[in-house]
């Protein structure tokens, strides 16, 4: 490597490519404003007039029994439901004031702004490096190989995985443990420089140690991203949430903040659900 190349790499490496230099020390700041949202799957009315603010730099948790519409709601936020047969909606989902369902919004570009981490870790059967660099390569968000290396490193660092994989970036992602695979998926989501990260039951298949790491990560990530979490796990909601939205049969029953919502919920239906009386 020539002296100039080393210097160039050093210049790139010392930049935080994941955080715009806007003087705030944070990135993100995008929030959703959901207005009178109705979602249908054919004749099934799944979400009924939902209006909700998802605030930047906070963790908003959607909670509720199976079939309440929480997964549908989170998937609406990056248009994952577009290709579900029979899906239609009314109302608006505004991201920074722009309705993400407007005809001029590219759903693929939207997914770079609104990343998603799923219940089951789903790394691609390629190397760790290639998993993380996949999004930047598709969307061409880097200017040089050095810059891509930095994006991969910083994404893995933000996902709390760098120290564990830095010496084996070229090995298959499938050789990682379940918890490491999930953090790799978080790094992959971060690498596309999203504004919002959606987590759909991200720790339900993980052991307690890996669950704790994912929770710590979510709390750390909210500094730079807007975080939305779907979970059945009330203790997890209580640990990480800034705002909890309790849904039941497609309606918002109660919006509250932990721990107060878990100590003294205002709605009897919330009380029944969190106490295990609602089946």
């Amino acid at each position: 490597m020539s002296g100039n190349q080393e210097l160039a790499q050093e210049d790139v490496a010392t930049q935080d490519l994941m955080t715009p230099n806007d003087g705030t020390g944070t990135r993100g700041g995008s929030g959703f404003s959901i207005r009178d949202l109705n979602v249908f799957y054919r004749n099934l009315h799944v979400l009924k007039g939902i209006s909700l603010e998802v605030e930047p730099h906070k963790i908003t948790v959607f909670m509720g029994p199976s079939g309440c519409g929480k997964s549908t709601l989170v998937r609406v936020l990056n248009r994952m439901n577009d290709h579900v047969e029979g899906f239609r909606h009314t109302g608006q989902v505004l991201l920074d004031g722009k309705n993400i369902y407007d005809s001029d919004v590219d759903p693929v570009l939207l997914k770079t702004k609104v990343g998603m981490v799923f219940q089951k870790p789903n790394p691609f059967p390629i190397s760790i490096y290639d998993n993380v660099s996949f999004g930047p390569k598709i969307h061409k968000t880097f200017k040089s190989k050095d810059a891509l290396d930095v994006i991969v490193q910083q994404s893995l660092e933000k996902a709390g995985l760098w120290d564990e994989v830095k010496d084996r970036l070229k090995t298959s992602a499938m050789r990682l443990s379940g918890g490491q695979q999930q953090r790799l998926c978080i790094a992959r989501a971060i690498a596309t420089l999203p504004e919002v990260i959606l987590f759909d039951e991200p720790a339900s298949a993980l052991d307690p140690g890996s669950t704790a790491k994912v929770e710590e990560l979510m709390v750390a990530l909210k500094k730079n991203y807007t975080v939305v979490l779907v979970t059945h796990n009330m203790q997890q909601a209580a640990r990480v949430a800034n705002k909890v939205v309790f849904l039941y049969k497609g309606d918002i029953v109660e919006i509250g903040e932990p721990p107060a919502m878990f100590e003294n919920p205002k709605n009897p239906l919330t009380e029944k659900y969190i106490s295990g009386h609602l089946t």
Partner: protein
Amino acid sequence: MARLIDIGLERVSDILMDMANLSEKSVSAAIESYMTGKPRIEEIRSWSEEIRQLQDDVSELCVDIIARYQPVATDLRFVKAAMDIAYGFSRFGRYAFDIVDVLELCGDLTNCEKGIVELTSKTTREMLKMSVDAFANRDVELAKNVQKMDDFVDDKFREAIDRAVHGKGEDVKCAVSESLILRYLERISDHSSYIGDSVLYIVTGERAPRK
């Protein structure tokens, strides 16, 4: 179908009611002992010790429930309140013992005027019984009524201190014993009032400011 946590919560409730019964019995026996001059210190010491052990049982059960079930909402409030209430009952046992211990310390009190203690103890015992009933029935109104009665007992205690300090020609032994016993009755009334606070917290989630 009952939830698994309900078995633990019912067990805590049962122990608290046992503590309530022992507490009422101990306080009544202690006051009767003072009024009649008949010493019952060993009996009351044993009840007081039994109540204290039951308080440990409640604490252990509550920790067990927290560890196993991570209670929330009413369950969580009940578990927190149960530990507070168990502490209150343990204090009743202790103050009952302290009341009979006055007889041991002061000796024969046959010639002392006991009308104020008798009057105050009626209110204190009523407050204790009402707080237990409020807990047993989750009766918020009854709990609030307990709190309203607290001032009467406080006043009687303060008057007794005033008499002991400023009174002329008072029998010192009588004045000291009356002041001590009214002090214990005043503390029992306070803890009855705290149990009322706990009932309010279980039912409504409201926290009463501690006086």
